[in-house]
């Protein structure tokens, strides 16, 4: 059995000339909580849909829970709980009817959990799905995914429309009933604070490619923001430099590792080091994907001295 819950090799999905997913290599370890991050249009939802057979890949290959997405889709779908980005289900059915409809497909379905989550999330179980608010629709999608006894949960924008109390409950349920049971959670989200809490792996996608895939702990231990000052900034170069920003005489450099060495180099070039700070996931995300940074987005490298 593969120790990866999701594994893709140069996966690609084109829509005409649009390369939504463009040579994606994902490695999602079993039992991990993997935060799949990217800006709008980066290719997150297309990736998710391709992994679950809702779209056919243009090229490349992928395995989910060890099963090939082209050959063994049924095996994948029976073991995967999915909360889609657009929370659509049959509008004319009530949540209670949707539960009855869904439970037959999943041998590990738990009625006990369904009852518990319906109460916990305060879901109106006898109102037609089409009449529900976005928040309540989202909750119903979660209930259906969480009760399957799935080995893998794929959650696309899980907290959209949810109030902070329900989001907090959802996080608790995910940790308590899924992560603690060794199940894998693949979570695509913009809510970086949530991801930072519960994820242990993150992948950042941009233009259909992975910019960074690492343990969250690697970011916490090795990524640093170096704030420095100088009359004229020197030209610097390091393979670990992720991004740099300047405001007047002040510079900040985001480095992926060896921050002390980088700071020493800056010092040797006459800069004053103000501080070296640990960074949050949000800062790394912005550093990698923001277009205004003077180094090439996502490509650690050289910054030319300003003219």
């Amino acid at each position, binding site marked *: 059995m593969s120790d990866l819950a999701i594994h893709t090799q140069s996966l690609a999905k084109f829509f005409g000339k649009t390369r939504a997913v463009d040579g994606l290599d994902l490695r999602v370890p079993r039992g991990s*909580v993997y935060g799949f991050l990217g800006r709008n249009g980066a290719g997150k939802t297309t990736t998710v849909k391709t992994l679950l057979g809702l779209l056919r890949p243009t090229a490349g290959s992928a395995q989910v829970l060890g099963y090939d997405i082209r050959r063994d889709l049924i095996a994948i779908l029976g073991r995967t709980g999915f909360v889609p980005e657009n929370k659509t289900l049959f509008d004319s059915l009530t949540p209670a009817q949707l539960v009855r409809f869904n439970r037959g497909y999943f041998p590990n379905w738990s009625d006990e959990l369904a009852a518990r989550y319906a109460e916990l999330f305060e879901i109106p179980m006898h109102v037609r799905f089409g009449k529900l608010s976005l928040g309540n629709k989202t909750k119903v999608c979660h209930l259906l995914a969480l009760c399957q006894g799935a080995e893998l949960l794929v959650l696309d924008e899980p907290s959209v429309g949810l109030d902070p109390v329900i989001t*907090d409950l959802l*996080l*608790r349920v995910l*940790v*308590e009933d899924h*992560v*603690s049971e060794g199940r894998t959670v693949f979570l695509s989200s913009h809510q970086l*604070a949530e991801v*930072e*809490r*519960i*994820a*242990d792996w993150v992948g950042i996608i941009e233009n259909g490619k992975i910019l960074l895939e690492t343990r969250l*702990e690697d970011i*916490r*231990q090795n990524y640093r923001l170096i704030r420095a000052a100088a009359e004229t900034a020197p030209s610097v170069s390091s393979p670990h430099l992720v991004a740099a920003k300047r405001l007047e005489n002040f510079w900040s450099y985001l480095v992926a590792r060896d921050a002390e060495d980088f700071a020493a180099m800056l010092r040797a070039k006459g800069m004053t*080091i103000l501080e070296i*700070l*640990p*960074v*949050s996931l*949000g*800062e790394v995300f912005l550093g990698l994907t923001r277009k205004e940074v003077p180094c090439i987005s996502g490509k650690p490298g050289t910054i030319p001295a300003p003219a």
Partner: protein
Amino acid sequence: MLLSINTSSGLPVYLQIEGQVKQAIAAGALTQGQALLPVRRMAAELRVNPNTVAKAYQNLERDGVVRTVPGGGTYVADSSPGLLKSEKLRRLRPLAHQLAVESLQLRLPTGDVVKLVEGELGGLGEKR
């Protein structure tokens, strides 16, 4: 015990857990032999990954702050970690280095830095 996690600080969550447990012990809120919440409970309470809590507990055990009974939970250890002095010093060295770097950067005289550390030690010592 109740902990509070701040994800925007950039400080690793496991270090926040470790720090708050150590602080609670230093302040007398957790006493010798008292049990910490099991890893899963603590993770669910804090809404953080169980691996993160497990790592914090492991580090606390390595530091002699808590002891783990196989299959029986995690307890606040007997007061003084029985470590060799050289090992204790080895653990503090990175912090000392950081303090030295910062002090040099700020061009603070050594005497003031020593006084600062003594002041901090004194403040904690009163509570012991």
